[in-house]
């Protein structure tokens, strides 16, 4: 009996390792994914004034910091019973799609694409973003432009491209100026074009790798996503579970999440394993993120992305259950985020300075949910009379996916060692 340990897992932002225990015949007997870091944000936001927490929690993730900032401030608005001005909501949504554009471009072009552009058998020393710049400079140029556009949106709306600061209870601390809006608007059509190129590129890549896509990491799971009136939505407002066979859809509001989502502590992982409570653990493990979002929604909210979603389901079936189809789904969302950015930037009210309403801290319990680039993100805080946080719970996007990532790696290992 032997053991294979893969550590560190590379080209991802967290800390992880995989252990594969082999039986006498060298076949994988037990495959585990371990997340090997813990910082304890849920503990150390306790005792902090709630308005400071959106400035602390972005450090959960330097890639999707904006999503943490916004889920956090939404949770506090909800705990204190605040309805923020419409323009502030639009600014926050714009900030979020800016982060989505940067992160989806990073995730695909910088972290995943080296495998496809340079090949999975390429020398590990060159199989990275520098290799992509070398081998496919035009692709790299568009990837860099998309990331820059996304980060510019977050910097203009959020004050800082990484770890933004403008979300405060009651609204936003800074309006978007007309000059900032005009500069972004000038770029947006080009970005939509690049977004379309991205989807066309993944379609070409998929044709080459279709054997692997249809055999490795193919698993049946539940799916969890965010929809508004049934449509794909980055910012609001209803959570929806889809059953593995695609027949059952269950909707609930963010504040009801504890009735639907549980977390199971496993001995070999700092991250807990979330599951759909009505089904139980481990049968109720589910996937979040682009693949889940495309499965869960009835349609995309923007027109070009909707055309591509229909085509996606024709290629992969419904619900699409191939883990390697995540890339294709992610690029459709990247295009949708660019389209959504255009709609928001063209909204005349976006530069209004009616962005903040008066607030009073009070004792309360609030849940804030947004769709972060890797999936549904939940922040939940309870505050005392002075607005100091006394209880906190967070279920981070990748956390939802950890048990199903493990399941997908198990399936892939069995397939590869067959």
């Amino acid at each position: 009996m032997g053991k294979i340990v893969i550590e560190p897992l590379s080209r991802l932002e967290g800390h992880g390792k995989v252990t594969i225990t082999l039986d006498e015949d060298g076949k994988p007997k037990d495959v585990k994914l371990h997340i090997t870091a813990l910082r304890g944000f849920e503990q150390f936001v306790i005792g902090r004034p709630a308005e400071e927490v959106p400035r602390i929690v972005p450090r959960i993730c330097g890639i999707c910091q904006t999503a943490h900032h916004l889920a956090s401030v939404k949770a506090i608005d909800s705990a204190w019973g605040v309805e923020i001005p419409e323009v502030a909501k639009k600014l926050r949504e714009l900030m979020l799609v800016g982060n989505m554009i940067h992160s989806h471009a990073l995730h695909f072009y910088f972290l995943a694409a080296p495998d496809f552009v340079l090949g999975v058998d390429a020398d590990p020393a060159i199989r990275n973003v520098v290799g992509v710049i070398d081998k496919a400079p035009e692709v790299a140029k568009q990837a860099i432009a998309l990331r820059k556009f996304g980060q510019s949106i977050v910097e203009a709306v959020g004050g800082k491209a990484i770890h933004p600061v403008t979300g405060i209870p009651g609204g936003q601390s800074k309006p978007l100026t007309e000059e900032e809006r005009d500069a972004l608007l000038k770029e947006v059509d080009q970005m939509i074009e690049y977004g379309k190129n991205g989807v066309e590129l993944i379609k070409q890549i998929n044709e080459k790798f279709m054997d692997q896509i249809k055999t490795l990491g193919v698993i049946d799971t539940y799916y969890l996503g965010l929809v508004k009136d049934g449509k794909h939505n980055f910012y609001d407002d209803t959570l929806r579970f889809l059953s593995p066979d695609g027949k059952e859809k269950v909707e609930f509001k963010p504040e009801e999440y504890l009735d639907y989502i549980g977390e199971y502590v496993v001995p070999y992982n700092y991250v807990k394993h979330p599951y759909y409570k009505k089904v139980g653990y481990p049968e109720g493990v589910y996937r979040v993120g682009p693949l889940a979002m495309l499965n869960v929604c009835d349609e995309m909210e923007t027109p070009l992305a909707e055309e591509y979603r229909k085509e996606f389901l024709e290629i992969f079936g419904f619900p699409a259950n191939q883990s390697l189809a995540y890339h294709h789904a992610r690029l459709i969302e990247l295009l949708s985020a660019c389209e959504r950015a255009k709609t928001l930037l063209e909204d005349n009210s976006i530069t209004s300075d009616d962005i903040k309403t008066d607030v009073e801290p009070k004792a309360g319990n609030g849940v804030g949910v947004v769709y972060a680039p890797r999936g549904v993100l939940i922040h939940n805080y309870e505050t005392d009379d002075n607005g100091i946080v006394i209880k906190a719970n967070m279920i981070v996007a990748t956390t939802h996916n950890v048990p199903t990532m493990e399941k997908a790696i198990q399936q892939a290992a069995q397939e590869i060692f067959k």
Partner: protein
Amino acid sequence: MIQLCGCSGCHISLLDLHEKLLEVLPNLEIVYGPIVADPKEIPEGIDVFLVEGGIRNEHDEHLIHEIREKSKIVIAWGTCAAYGGIPGLGNLYKKEELLNYVYSTDSTENKGEIPSEEIPPLEEYVKPIKDFIKVDYTIPGCPPTPKMIADAIIALLNGEEPKLPTKIVCDECSRKKENVFPETFKRTYEGKPDPERCLFEQGYTCLGFATRAGCGAKCPSAGVPCRGCFGKTDRSLDLGANAANVLANAGEASLKIPDKVALLNRFTLPDALINRKAK
């Protein structure tokens, strides 16, 4: 480069050089960097190692010694590596308290079971990397700006020492100062600050006066007070103590500021003179 107890924001800030990456990257050979590249072993004979993140668990501690042995120059890259950063707020709690809380939240099914297999045990407290090894240079910031990172890399490529700004955030802030001291302090949700005037003088607990420059005063420019993410200046021993000293001039009013420990040491608690909660 590597991320220890950090968030990868410093790595992303490097990528935020955007098209300038095309000029900078070809001059470098990335021999190790799990976030962007695949090599699993840290090779010998590294010229410059950029370390993001502080030390939170035994694996971080093991790695920082290995990094030091195999590198000519080690850089504390960002505020977590340099001063502990936001995860350092964990030092307000004992390790057991932190673990017990995280594994007993409302959504946890089997509350109180604590994972311990195949994962590195936590250290008692978060510490900056200089508590374990000799650090050659520091690039502070949460995260450092892309320009600061590029300037440091270019300086090293030219065989020069990277330089840090010596001024404070107020020197970079365009808000107007009238040299008045606030009589009372406000929390950030209170009122709508005048967009032209100094936030501190309006009563917001801005820490720009105690914080190293380099960010371009981004937070006050966006209407929110500085929280000290670039750490102390060369002339100061302790950011929190320095800031407390200034705020104390307000007398009674300063006593009413909530959560003073985590406000004044938001990013630097593990490096503070008093670096954890005294019981």
